[in-house]
């Protein structure tokens, strides 16, 4: 094993496809390759699906009951083969007969594949001691016959009514089964209606008695469910429940039949054909009789849910309606128009107001400007200047006139002074005025030399004279 070629790992179908390798097998790529675990799982699923619960006959061997868990492990074998079996603690404890090596049994349970070892394994639910006697042979023959008629088919089994009007009980009057059923019934539903039809369940003619009682009770059409029960007993004690007549009566019932025969995993023919088979009378009663309070509670819950749902529905719709209404009024054109016209009014008012304010301000400004303008108006200024000019001119004229008078007077005075000083007047008195040719007055004798011409002005006329020389004059 150690030198097996693990170099190339084969992969499960869910893994990505392997790259084609150059190694020995050329068709690896198209062949579906199981992983070991995948194959086991597939096999297990197939086995469990195709077989389900099966009965297998054989001899117990290699029995071990695990000390800690209490589970039983054994091998069921016959001349040809072996089958690994496991039986869980709960089932082991319910067994009436202790398991033992060499014991011939019919076990029933689910067949499966134990994944680790890949072995087939039966998970045992119950064990019947396999008598080799005629009773066991008859049991198997009858079971097979009924099965072939379809009377054991799961499709035939009816569901238990949720609230049976009345529950029938067919069992021994003095048996523990009856008391267990009544006790259970009262515990689950104090208002239960029970119809008890007592019948012998063992001994000579018990099969017919059971069948007759069952049908008689069913014929009343009062019970929706009938419990057919019997407490524990030996396999021989239960023979009536393995009879064909009881099986036929069970199959003929209008009421739903629940069996509770024995209190272990032994299967009776009645169990095979009933609508529901329970391991004990108590269990049968528990299935047949509902807890009334639970059902009432379901109604209360349903009512509450109804009320809540409707309330939620109505309030939800109400809320939606309000929302829509709000949306609608928001969309109302009349309102929109009103709002718009109001808006328009407001805007108009504001416009007017601001217009008025602007106008006022401008008017004020205009007034100021007008005033200022008036102040700088040129005509007015010119008029003012003109007036001023006239005033100044008048002033000037006056001053000028005064000046003129004063000047005239001064002139007259000057003229008078001048006349007094006039050389002509002096000349008249006999004096003469001598001047050079260039009209300079000769005041000194040195100013002229002999031979120079001299002009001599006389009081009347003038003479030109020639200088002859200078005279000596005594000072």
């Amino acid at each position, binding site marked *: 094993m150690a030198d097996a070629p693990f170099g190339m790992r084969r992969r499960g179908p869910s893994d990505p496809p392997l790259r084609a390798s150059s190694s020995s097998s050329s068709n690896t790529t198209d062949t579906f390759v199981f992983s070991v675990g995948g194959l086991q799982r597939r096999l297990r699923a197939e086995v469990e699906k195709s077989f389900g619960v099966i009965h297998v006959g054989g001899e117990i061997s290699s029995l071990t009951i695990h000390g800690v868990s209490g589970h039983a492990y054994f091998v069921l074998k016959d001349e040809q083969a072996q089958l690994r079996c496991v039986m869980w603690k709960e089932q082991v404890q319910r067994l009436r007969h202790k398991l033992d090596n060499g014991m011939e049994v019919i076990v029933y349970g689910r067949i499966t594949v134990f994944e680790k070892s890949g072995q087939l394994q039966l998970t045992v639910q119950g064990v019947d001691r396999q008598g080799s006697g005629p009773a066991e042979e008859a049991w198997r023959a009858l079971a097979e016959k009924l099965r072939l008629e379809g009377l054991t088919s799961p499709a035939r089994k009816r569901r238990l009514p949720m609230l049976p009007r009345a529950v029938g009980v067919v069992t021994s009057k*003095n048996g523990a089964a009856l008391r267990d059923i009544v006790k259970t019934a009262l515990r689950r539903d104090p208002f239960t209606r029970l119809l*008890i039809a007592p019948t012998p369940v063992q*001994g000579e003619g018990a099969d017919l008695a059971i069948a007759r009682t069952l049908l008689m009770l069913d014929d009343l059409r009062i019970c929706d469910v009938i419990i057919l029960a019997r407490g524990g007993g030996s396999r021989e004690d239960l023979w009536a429940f393995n009879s064909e007549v009881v099986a036929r009566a069970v199959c003929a019932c209008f009421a739903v039949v629940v069996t509770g025969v024995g209190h272990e995993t032994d299967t009776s023919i009645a169990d095979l054909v009933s609508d529901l088979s329970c391991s004990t009378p108590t269990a049968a009663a528990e299935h047949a009789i509902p807890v009334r309070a639970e059902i009432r509670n379901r109604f209360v819950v349903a009512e509450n849910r109804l009320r809540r749902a409707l309330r939620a529905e109505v309030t939800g719709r109400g809320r939606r309606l309000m929302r829509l209404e709000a949306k609608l009024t928001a969309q109302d054109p009349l309102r929109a128009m009103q709002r718009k016209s109001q808006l328009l009014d407001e805007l108009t008012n504001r416009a007017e107001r601001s217009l008025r304010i602007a106008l006022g301000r401008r008017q004020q400004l205009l007034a100021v400007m007008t005033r200022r303008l008036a102040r700088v108006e040129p005509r007015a200024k010119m008029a003012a200047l003109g007036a001023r000019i006239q005033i100044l001119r008048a002033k000037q004229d006056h001053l000028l006139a005064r000046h003129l008078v004063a000047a005239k007077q001064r002139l007259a005075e000057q003229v008078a002074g001048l006349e007094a000083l006039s050389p002509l007047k002096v000349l008249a008195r006999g004096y003469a005025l001598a001047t050079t040719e260039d009209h300079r007055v000769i005041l000194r004798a040195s100013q002229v030399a002999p031979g120079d011409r001299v002009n001599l002005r006389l009081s009347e006329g003038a003479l030109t004279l020639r200088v002859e020389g200078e005279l000596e004059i005594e000072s």
Partner: protein
Amino acid sequence: MTQSFEELMSRLEDIVGRLESNQLSLEQAIEAYQEGVTLAKQGHSRLADAERRIEEVTRGGERTPVDAEELLKKPRSEDEP
């Protein structure tokens, strides 16, 4: 023909489920609610319509009342034929 208790129950649960699904019109919802309430009432009355009654039925089909306490008091004995 009155409906079975199962029918009544499943109809009620169906109605509750539909009402809770919020997919009904308001009229349908109210109708469903009323039917549901009626069904619940019927259920309650059927549940109440019972009294503890234990009867023994004899071979001819005659029924005679049995006292439960008496029955339970009986000493445990082995089955007899």
